[in-house]
């Protein structure tokens, strides 16, 4: 692993960054899907009628039990069996997003349950419907309480985007692998560079979330860690 190899890898940095942008697109897709579904399932699990509550609990259990790599492969090969072809990128967003939604649902559920019961009572006593109470009183508080846990989930799924490699998405890991297969000695420098890129990304993401938490902070409503 000589200086020459490092220079070659760094000359290919644009290619690696281009791969990384695919990871970021995956991240955006899976976090949004996970956030939306997670919120819906959390609200259903806490406030929904009994059968829906059970469905939400079942969903959470299933998607937290199956190894992610397996979820990915199932999402990739499964639909193909029935003649439905989905792009590797889409399969990855779906598999990782569904998995993330199960974890995010747990984060939001815990936060919703941490809001004192008096808040719901006061909202209903004013004449707000249950939906309005959740929307205007419970969720704004629960989401703030969720921020710390959500940062954790962000750091986890950021790394998970590299799993998309397994179904053929040309993301940063695959780009690094290409470099290595062109010239064997480039493998290690390329992998180390990718590791450094993830260090930077995680730091930047958590920093941004910390800033958001500070911006949204309200006296008497601090997120517990």
């Amino acid at each position: 692993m000589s200086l020459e190899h490092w220079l070659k890898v760094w000359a290919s940095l644009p290619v690696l960054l281009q791969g990384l942008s695919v990871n970021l697109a995956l991240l955006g897709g899976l976090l949004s899907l996970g956030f939306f579904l997670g919120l819906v399932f959390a609200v259903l699990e806490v406030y929904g009628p009994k059968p829906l509550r059970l469905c939400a609990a079942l969903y959470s259990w299933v998607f937290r039990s199956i190894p992610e790599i397996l979820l990915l492969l199932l999402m990739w090969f499964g639909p193909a069996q029935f003649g439905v072809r989905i792009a590797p990128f889409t399969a990855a967003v779906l598999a990782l997003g569904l998995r993330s939604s199960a974890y995010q649902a747990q984060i939001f559920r815990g936060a919703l349950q941490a809001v004192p019961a008096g808040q719901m009572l006061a909202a209903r006593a004013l004449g707000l419907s249950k939906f309005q109470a959740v929307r205007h009183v419970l969720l704004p508080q629960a989401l703030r309480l969720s921020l710390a846990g959500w940062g954790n989930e962000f750091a986890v799924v950021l790394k998970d985007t590299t799993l998309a490699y397994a179904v053929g998405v040309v993301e940063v890991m695959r780009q690094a692998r290409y470099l290595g297969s062109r010239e064997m000695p480039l493998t290690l420098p390329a992998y180390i560079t990718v590791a450094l890129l993830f260090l930077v990304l995680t730091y930047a993401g958590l920093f941004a979330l910390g800033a958001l938490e500070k911006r949204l902070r309200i006296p008497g409503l601090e997120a517990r860690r």
Partner: protein
Amino acid sequence: MLLRVEDLHKRYGKEEVLRGVSFSLEKGETKVIIGPSGTGKSTLLRCINRLTEPDRGRVFLEDVEITSPRVNINKIRAQIGFVFQDFNLFTHLTALDNVRLGLMRVKGLSKKEATERAMRELARVGLADKAKAYPAELSGGQQQRVSIARALAMDPKLILFDEPTSALDPELIGEVLSVMVELAQSGMTMLVVTHEMGFARSVADEIIFMEKGVIVEQGPPEQLFKSPKHPRTVEFLRRITELYGGEK
């Protein structure tokens, strides 16, 4: 008649918390409910606006049966203010937004109208200068006054108070009681659970003494305090005087 409660029953598991409670309230009247703790006073108030569903019995607000399954309970609740023992201000909202929320989301007022109305009510409880403060930045007495403003803003036909001063430090009780006295004098219809005998004596049209899920005795304050008929009332009044001191 503004409020009529007929034969309310409520049980939690084996425990029968309300065992047939009936009374009524005329427009502009203030009635005070007293009674030992665990007697069902909070349950009674919550059954009136169906925050808790009664098992049996009926409640009427003017001519509308609140307990009818066909009624739109959210519309009814908007007409009945509720002030809680521990305030229950919305933690994430400023005093102003606490008062505005119901106006905008339930009454459908525009932001401008709601702001004007909310500021008027905050001024009425002496807290216009705290409009931008969050609940955690206010004293207990101030929080309770904001919660009264929140109830008042909805222009309710009736306000239910569930021990509004019980969670307050003694030196903060006065500011809340004086807001309530003013309200009563301004003609608001009020049903108040409290152990503040001075308040009861000076503003209540009638005192209701409740024990173990039933009304034991009711009557105007001078009668109930000076010459209670029932031995249970005598006993309770003796204990409450020991606990809270006499006249305040």
